[in-house]
């Protein structure tokens, strides 16, 4: 802000008035969940009076690293980002640290050995989500005498949510040897993928009792395949999903789904809190979990009218 007053909306310029500048690099806009996440962050930033430098990485780690470098150049106050993948952040995080810019991870973790590279992590526990789904199933089927055949629609291969949800679910259902995953295949987190995979599951496995989908969208796609096969979703096949986006909640309320473990994208307010604290140099917990719950059909009916996304 020295003599160069007509330079536009540069982040550096606004520092004079004490407004906090947050550089945020989002994974992309690959799903409705992600968009809700982005919107929540944008709204909360506005509410909290934080200036947001938003960048969309379009699902590419390279882009995120570039964005973080540029944030450093712009001398933002805090950097936050949802890492596309777990590994490979050390170099750029070191640069941020050298520039004395604190970093907050959102939604997904990184595997850096050096924990001092970031201040804190805020997001969901994917393993827990999988476990909650599994535990509910174990509870439901505890009286089942014969084998219960489960098919699993995985998320994008290798992605953290897919790996963790699969892991958590498997851990939970290990409690009952009757519960058996007979087929597990990636549906890429999309409805079309979910539908196409489910179609083949249905043809290959004459008896499917339970469907566990790693997100609502795949579950919704699978619904169509199940209906087309002449089965009744929610009755002939028990459907468990994760996320609780609006369409999923609707299906749950309609009795087509049986259970959803929530994975909330609405972490904007919590994030802005953290940003302020970090900026002020306050101590923050190393890990903040988003407030999440689970829904059964009845709970869904009750919650639906007030759902934000």
């Amino acid at each position, binding site marked *: 802000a020295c003599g160069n007053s007509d330079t536009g909306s540069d982040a550096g310029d606004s520092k004079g008035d004490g407004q906090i500048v947050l550089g945020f690099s989002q994974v992309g806009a*690959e799903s409705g969940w*992600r968009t809700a996440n982005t919107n929540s962050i944008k709204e909360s930033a506005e509410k909290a009076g934080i200036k947001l430098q938003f960048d969309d990485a379009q699902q590419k780690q390279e882009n995120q690293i570039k964005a973080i470098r540029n944030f450093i150049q712009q001398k933002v106050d805090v950097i936050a980002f949802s890492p596309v993948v777990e590994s490979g952040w050390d170099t750029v995080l070191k640069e941020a640290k050298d520039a004395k810019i604190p970093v907050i991870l959102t939604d997904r973790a990184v595997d850096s050995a050096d924990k001092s590279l970031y201040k804190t992590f805020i997001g969901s526990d994917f393993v827990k989500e999988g476990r909650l789904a599994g535990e509910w199933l174990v509870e439901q089927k505890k009286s089942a005498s014969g084998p219960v055949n489960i098919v699993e629609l995985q998320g994008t*291969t290798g992605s953290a949510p897919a790996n963790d949800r699969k892991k958590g679910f498997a851990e939970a259902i290990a409690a009952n040897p009757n519960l058996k995953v007979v087929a597990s295949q990636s549906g890429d987190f*999309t409805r*079309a993928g979910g539908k*196409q995979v489910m179609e083949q599951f249905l*043809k290959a496995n004459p008896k499917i009792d339970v469907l566990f989908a790693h997100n609502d*969208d795949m579950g*919704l796609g699978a619904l169509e395949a199940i209906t087309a096969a002449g089965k009744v979703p929610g009755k002939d096949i028990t459907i468990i999903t994760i996320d609780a986006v609006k369409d999923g909640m609707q299906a749950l309320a309609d009795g087509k789904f049986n259970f959803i473990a929530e994975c909330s994208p609405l972490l904007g307010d919590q994030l802005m809190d953290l940003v302020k604290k970090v900026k002020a140099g306050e101590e923050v917990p190393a890990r903040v979990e988003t407030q999440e719950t689970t829904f059964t059909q009845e709970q869904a009916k009750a919650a639906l009218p007030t759902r934000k996304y």
Partner: protein
Amino acid sequence: MSTARTRLAGVTGHRLFWPLVVLVVLLAANTVYRPSFLSVELKNGHLYGSLIDILRLSAPLILVALGMSLVIATGGIDLSVGSVAAVCGAIACLYISEQPDQNSLGGVLTAVAIAFGIALLLGAWNGILVAGIGIQPIIATLILMVAGRGLAQLVTSGQIITINSEPYKTIGVGHLLTLPFAIIIALAVTLVVALLTRRTALGMIIEAVGGNAEASRLAGVRSRRITFLVYVVSAACAAVAGFMMTANVSSADGNAVGLWVELDAILAVVIGGTSLIGGRFYLSGTIVGALIIQTLTTSVYAMNIDPQTALLFKAVVVIAVCLIQAPAFRARFRRRQAPGVPPAAPVEKQKEQVPA
């Protein structure tokens, strides 16, 4: 016996022979894995079974690949088809979702018409860039490939628009005469394109432009107009494919609809025997190519192949199809035999040789 052999040679020499063999092999492999793969039953008056799924799911790819064939025939390429499909699907779904009665046929038709109109505009945009401004097709369409995805998400505001419209759903999962409606649309469009190109002179003119644009121009062909036209047709085909993809799941996901379909379409076209250099194109080959690719995808799901191996599997099949089709490859593995040549005419005059 020799006629039988020549007839056999005629069959194996046919352009479609090897692609069809590959298709059959793929189906056979599936049947070995799961004998019920080929079974088709009648459920609620619809045919039901993996084969039917393949047909239904290949419909959008067939459409996109048809348009792509024409573009490739002119020596171009259209990378934007996936994005165009996404934009059009999104617009149609958005319009329908805003209707008070989503099941009204009029509303759905209007939605489809609006989206189709947009597709024509997008195609015209590509056409102008390529034919009018002279930008290399791969870059010209790359622009819309990138920006189109953004447009689709802009339309859906980054959300998935879910609709509940029976008429629209019909496009993707409906049935007509027990067959999936989608495949009937694809066949109808194929028929129209085939008639337009092969019953009129359009096909030949497209091939002339692709073979040698300057020579065609000097022969009085309006090369630019033809080039422009194929991009519009390609976008139109992509739009219909977009309707099918979104109708299939009754929702529009600006990010996922038609993702990477351009690669599959190009693959289908090339497997079908059309050269990327331009010139001759073969619609029937394209359709077989599309069926091969969809069968491959379905096989991966049906045989529960994990996604890691799936890509390796695809690589192997693609190379195999292209190798056995390549004359150079076959020549190496065929024992030398006298090619069928008209017998030499009787020598008219004795050779004269004058000593050196």
